């Protein structure tokens, strides 16, 4: 995995886009600090979906890099401006991701739990707004780009 460390003053943060499975425990425990009493974690996992006669087999993510890396770090700065947090970690996986596997791990360490919970929620919402990453659901009967409804599935073709 390729880690990209970003160290704004006094904070230690990690923003990374990686291929291959996320080592969730390491990402979380790396945020433990003596000045923080709360570490909130959000893990996004790929969800199985099914309709009559078809089901999702896996997901595939792609990113516009390095813009996506920069946008993750920007979210970290936005959080630091809004809450008293001491560390933010966001690691997003790209490439093929099997069902039920983590695709994104967000860890926020803060002195108190309120800020940790709120900031981790903020991080995932912002990722879904501004970070140039896209996912494609690969179904048994074709694929579809989530959010665009473009693809080779019968339902997606009908929309074209």
């Amino acid at each position: 995995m390729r880690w990209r460390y970003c160290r704004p003053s006094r904070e230690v943060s990690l923003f990374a886009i990686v291929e291959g499975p996320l080592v969730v425990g390491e990402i979380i425990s790396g945020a433990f600090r003596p000045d923080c009493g709360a570490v909130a974690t959000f893990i996004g996992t790929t969800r199985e979906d099914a309709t009559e006669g078809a089901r999702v087999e896996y997901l595939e993510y792609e990113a516009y890099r390095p813009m996506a890396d920069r946008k993750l770090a920007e979210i970290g700065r936005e959080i630091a401006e809004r809450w008293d947090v001491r560390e933010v970690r966001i690691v997003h996986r790209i490439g093929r991701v099997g069902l039920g596997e983590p695709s994104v791990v967000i860890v926020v360490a803060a002195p108190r739990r309120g800020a940790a919970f709120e900031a981790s929620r903020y991080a995932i919402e912002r990722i879904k707004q501004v970070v140039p990453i896209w996912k494609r659901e690969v179904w048994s009967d074709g694929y579809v780009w989530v959010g665009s409804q473009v693809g080779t599935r019968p339902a997606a073709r009908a929309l074209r």
Partner: protein
Amino acid sequence: MSGMNGTRAVRVLLFGAAADQAGARELELQVRDGATLGDLWNELTGRYPGLTPMGDTLAFAVNQEYAGMERRVSPGDEVAILPPVSGG
């Protein structure tokens, strides 16, 4: 990068559904001096009509930062065509 008649090349990257609809992920477009993203979009949809229905949903970036249609593009710029993001 310099072309004929005062036109210059801009590098265009397409992602996700936009790459699908165009059948291309990366290309170079000649743009006139003073051209905007809007001009470039017209040029692009002329060449790849499959992109046209996506128009209202797309965002654009110039040199890796979001930009509006009035944004000027210059020779050597990197323009990205960004469908609705769906990370997480």
